[in-house]
């Protein structure tokens, strides 16, 4: 793959120039060669200096690679080409840097999570299981997450949808501008602040922790995401459709409900699902508002609940091998949940995407 990208003909920028006409070029295999060489050197240096951290080995290899490429290229091809090659390798290194943590995280989660993840784990709570002993499961947290996220979606999806409709179909003037601006700002509210907001309400009115309080905090985090994505989708609906419908004498609200929204339904669904995926992993508000529980509580309006991210945090804090295993297994369940939502959402987006010819 690396070889293919290095050559000009696959670059997305059109009209390949041919500097090769002007002067000598390094052979096509040179990036791979330099890569192997610098990796070998880095491993050698690392072993010689007895560095524990493989991170350092990688960094040294990356630096060596850039330096080697620059020297060789400026000797053979001239400085301009050399700079170009350095930039290319910098960009490649950046990309690899992003892949490494993701790969490592997924690998660690899957390999350690599979240890205790089984049917028993998914269908049992932690009732009566001492934190330092093996056993128990994640069922109560799963129920908590599903209910809290479900409630949050029930609140946030309609509000977000209607706000987006307002902004696109009705919005004019200062109110719309203010709403747009604050929706944007709201996207950046840290989840813990949303939690604190509801906590202050709870303190004020002497309310008890429950799944519903958590769901409210999650809804605050979810609304702006839904608004933004729905807004984008509604803007993509061609105006001719609206005009045609209005010209036939259909009232505006029916036009929106029957023409505009159905046209954009794929994109909207995607947006809502991505928003769900985002809030499903929120821990901070749950920690402040839901109290945490070892038991199954299917009523989100009364009494303590748990949730998957909170469960991970709780098990991490117990700090024994058994609880770490449970934390990783729960992390695997959570990641699977979020990733599946993501995949399905993007699948829908692709399947329903307007054919723009790109």
């Amino acid at each position, binding site marked *: 793959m690396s070889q293919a990208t290095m050559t000009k003909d696959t670059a997305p920028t059109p009209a390949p120039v041919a500097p090769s006409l002007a002067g000598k070029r390094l052979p096509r295999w040179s990036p791979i060669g330099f890569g192997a060489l610098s990796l070998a050197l880095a491993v050698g240096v690392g072993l010689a200096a007895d560095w*524990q951290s493989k991170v350092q080995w990688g960094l040294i290899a990356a630096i060596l690679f850039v330096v080697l490429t620059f020297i060789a290229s400026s000797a053979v091809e001239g400085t301009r080409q050399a700079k170009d090659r350095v930039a*290319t390798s910098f960009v490649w290194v950046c990309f690899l840097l992003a892949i490494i943590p993701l790969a490592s995280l997924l690998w660690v989660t899957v390999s350690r999570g599979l240890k205790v993840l089984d049917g028993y784990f998914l269908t049992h709570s932690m009732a009566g299981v001492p934190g330092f002993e093996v056993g128990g499961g994640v069922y109560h947290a799963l129920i908590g997450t599903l209910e809290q996220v479900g409630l949050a979606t029930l609140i946030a999806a309609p509000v977000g949808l209607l706000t987006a409709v307002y902004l696109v179909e009705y919005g004019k003037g200062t109110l719309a501008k203010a709403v747009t601006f604050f929706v944007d700002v709201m996207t950046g509210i840290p989840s813990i602040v949303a939690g604190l907001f509801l906590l202050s309400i709870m303190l004020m009115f002497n309310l008890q922790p429950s799944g519903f309080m958590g769901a409210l905090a999650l809804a605050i985090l979810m609304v702006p995401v839904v608004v933004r994505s729905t807004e984008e989708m509604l*803007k993509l609906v061609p105006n001719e459709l609206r005009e045609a419908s209005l010209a036939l004498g259909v009232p505006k*609200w029916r036009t929106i409900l029957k023409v505009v929204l159905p046209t954009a339904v794929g994109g909207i669904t995607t947006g809502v699902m991505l928003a769900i995926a985002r809030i499903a992993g*929120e821990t901070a508000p749950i920690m402040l508002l839901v109290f945490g529980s070892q038991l199954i509580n299917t009523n989100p309006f009364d009494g303590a609940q748990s949730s998957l991210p909170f469960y991970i945090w709780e098990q991490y804090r117990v700090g024994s091998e058994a609880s770490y295993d449970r934390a990783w297994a729960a992390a695997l369940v959570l990641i699977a949940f979020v*990733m599946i939502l993501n995949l399905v959402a993007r699948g829908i987006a692709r399947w329903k995407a307007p054919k723009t010819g790109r």
Partner: protein
Amino acid sequence: MTTTVIPPDSPPSPPPPPPAKATPTRPGDKIFRGLSRGSGILLLVVMASIAAFLTFRAAIAISGNEGNFFTTFDWDPAGNPPVFGIAVLLYGTVVSSVIAMVIAVPVAVGIALFISHYAPRRLASPLAYVVDLLAAVPSIIYGIWGALFLVPYLGGLNSWLDSYLGWTLIFDKTEIGPARNLFTVGILLAIMILPIVTSVSREVFLQVPKMNEEAALALGATRWEVIRLSVLPFGRSGVISASMLGLGRALGETMAVATVLSPSFLFSGHLLDAGGGTFAQNIAAKFDEANEFGRDALIASGLVLFVLTLLVNGAARLIIARRKEYSGANA
């Protein structure tokens, strides 16, 4: 169904508002309009009440604080007399976010360029998807990964930095112990904000007028020169706002910091020494032990965090908004 025909390469610009003077108002229209307007207003009300409620509880806490809220290096709202101050938290929050920015922004720009200009075309969109996946991983999972996996790994890097860069003082490690410090937190935050900075930058880079790039190529520029001369200048403000969105996220990150950092209320310029704290981490760590007044004190620190993220995000959005007009005229 011919609904999905959209003129190619038209950016998602808002359609001109549909004819407004339309038909005589019908009850259905009125209700629907009211509903949608109402939910818009509801959002504003929520924002306002977040500010109001937090301010109200914070006022209770601050009036009972015997120390100085901004300069006290301590957090002891349950003590006698109760004292707490945000100096250490502010410092820790800013420092860890700055480290995250210093690492993440160049890398994110690199990835964005890779996806927009270097990667083989067929790979570009799957790669963009992979980067987006990084954003989908819940922060608590980053947290346990950071604490149980990254921290041991960074031990070697820490002692290496200490022995070769220790003279800079900020990399001087004065005590042993695992790398549960602000530097590690910064690295973890960098990984976490990478996706958002990348995806916003990528969008901007893709909007560079093809004409500019082709003109540069026609003059015999190398690919790097094309990027330096036409792509980066065009995308600069976009990258700035993307970075600020990332900054906003780094400032408020809770769980990842709470799991990785070994907190303390000592003020230290040594980034590799364990200790320090951030607003969000402090709330997570102290919440369990706090009585009602302690919770108010935490809410007060949360208010500062709220204002901080509000400013950063607001600024980012303003920059984006201004750039949109500019690019609209250009594209």
